[in-house]
């Protein structure tokens, strides 16, 4: 069990999610439990000249239907996803917004993105270079910048403390969440809105990913022998983090405690991950949480279904957990919502908290024949009832940037 802490404790009082499995945590969670696949033929762009034609798209996203204020209606899709997820998280937290001045000043808003408003950029380049327009849309710059989601959310809720975006490719969300966790822990803030958003599904980005030769034309099948690459997704995962006594005093419903955060860099290779970097990040997160490997019930794996990630992650888990690795429930929910890139770890952390709340481990779907080198329990195809007291969420990004979060139950 976790030891009582001599430092300020950080709890989660709200969460929100946008993904190919739907908008809102309940829709998302029901789809995960049922093993629903949100990956399908891409519709947001013309796939005619592409050989990668599938993606995990957020279907029929209409910002007006999600109670977003006018400022979001003029933003890029990635900021709209952030607004939507933040709206759900803030509503669940029960905080009264806009935050009063003194509270707003003690609140952080860190919402990152892997690449920002790249579809806005593509559209503007098309206007300039192809259609020979004389100017871009006047909001192109504001829509594109990687800090716009954080700025929009801070405006929406009156957050006047630290506010910026974080960039670390597929580890963006846990880096953002981990930073706010540390800010609250260290006394800089009492509250924070933290997470990440991504909406980079367009022709040019898919073309660029296709050129890297790491995408699967068929589907995302983590840890399977026949896995042949990842599938791009999009979405957002945003949390309200709060200092424990602050939450208790206002009678907030505490969803979980954020117990540990570990981050490392492989400093080795842009695409080939190292066991050392991944395992050290997990170990630091466990140590920060003051937990032993055997305490963890569930790991939401990075599980991208690339040849190298899944073997490396399996070996890293074994290095950290030793014999306890065999008792773990592991799953890669990317098999259902796709690889949401910067938003991935945020979307997946929502899955982790729901697993803890409901005592159900979501599955890894499309799991047929396991890779002999990936020999742990990846919760194949069907969700499993299991009490999840402590859980870990792994994110390992291009460039060897690793970030790991550990969650536990609400303090007794």
């Amino acid at each position, binding site marked *: 069990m976790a030891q009582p802490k001599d430092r300020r404790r950080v709890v989660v009082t709200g969460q929100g999610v946008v993904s190919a499995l739907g908008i809102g945590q309940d829709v998302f969670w029901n789809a995960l439990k049922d093993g629903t696949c949100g990956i399908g033929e891409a519709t947001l762009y013309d796939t005619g000249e592409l*050989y990668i034609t599938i993606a995990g798209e957020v279907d029929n996203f209409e910002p007006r239907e999600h109670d977003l204020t006018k400022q979001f209606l003029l933003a890029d899709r990635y900021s709209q996803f952030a607004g939507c997820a933040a709206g759900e998280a803030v509503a669940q937290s029960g905080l009264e917004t806009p935050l009063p001045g003194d509270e707003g000043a003690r609140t952080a808003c860190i919402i990152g993105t892997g690449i920002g408003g790249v579809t806005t950029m593509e559209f503007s380049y098309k206007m300039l270079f192809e259609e020979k327009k004389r100017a871009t849309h006047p909001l192109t710059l504001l829509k594109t910048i990687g800090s716009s989601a954080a700025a929009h959310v801070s405006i929406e809720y009156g957050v006047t403390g630290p506010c910026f975006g974080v960039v670390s490719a597929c580890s963006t969300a846990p880096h953002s969440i981990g930073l706010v966790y540390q800010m609250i822990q260290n006394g800089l803030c009492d509250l924070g809105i933290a997470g990440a958003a991504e909406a980079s599904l367009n022709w040019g980005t898919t073309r660029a990913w296709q050129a890297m030769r790491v995408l699967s034309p068929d589907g995302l099948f983590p840890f399977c022998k026949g896995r042949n*690459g990842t599938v791009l997704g999009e979405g957002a995962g945003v949390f309200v983090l709060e200092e424990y006594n602050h939450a208790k005093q206002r009678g907030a419903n505490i969803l979980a405690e954020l117990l540990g955060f570990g981050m490392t860099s492989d400093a080795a290779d842009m695409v*080939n991950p190292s066991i050392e970097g991944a395992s050290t990040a997990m170990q630091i997160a466990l140590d920060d949480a003051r937990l032993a490997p055997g305490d963890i019930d569930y790991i939401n794996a990075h599980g991208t279904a690339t040849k190298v990630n899944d073997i490396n992650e399996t070996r890293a888990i074994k290095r950290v957990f030793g014999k306890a690795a065999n008792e773990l429930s592991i799953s890669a929910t990317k098999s259902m919502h796709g690889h949401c890139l910067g938003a991935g770890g945020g979307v997946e952390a929502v899955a982790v908290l729901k697993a803890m709340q409901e005592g159900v481990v979501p599955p890894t779907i499309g799991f047929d024949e396991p890779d002999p080198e990936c020999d742990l329990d990846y919760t194949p195809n069907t969700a499993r009832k299991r009490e999840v007291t402590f859980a870990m969420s792994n994110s390992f990004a291009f460039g060897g940037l690793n970030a790991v979060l550990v969650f536990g139950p609400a303090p007794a």
Partner: protein
Amino acid sequence: MDEVANKIIDILKKNMKEPSDSIALETPLTDLDIESLDLAVIVFDIEDTFGIEIPYNANEEVEDFSTVGAVVDKVNAIISEKKSSGAAA
């Protein structure tokens, strides 16, 4: 060696840190210190040079990329396939 082979060897050399002058058709790509990301760049360069598309997935073992000669054969096959389908159209 034909023109296709020479161009492909030039592309390989361009993408090597220390270009070797002894690249032959039998040379395995693994001897050229070419890693997965290098291969993606090389395939892109070949596609651009010859105006073709090469099916290649870094997650799969591909026999077509075992040796320099295998790459040349694959490119020649795609070029001739393209020519014949172009003639039919």
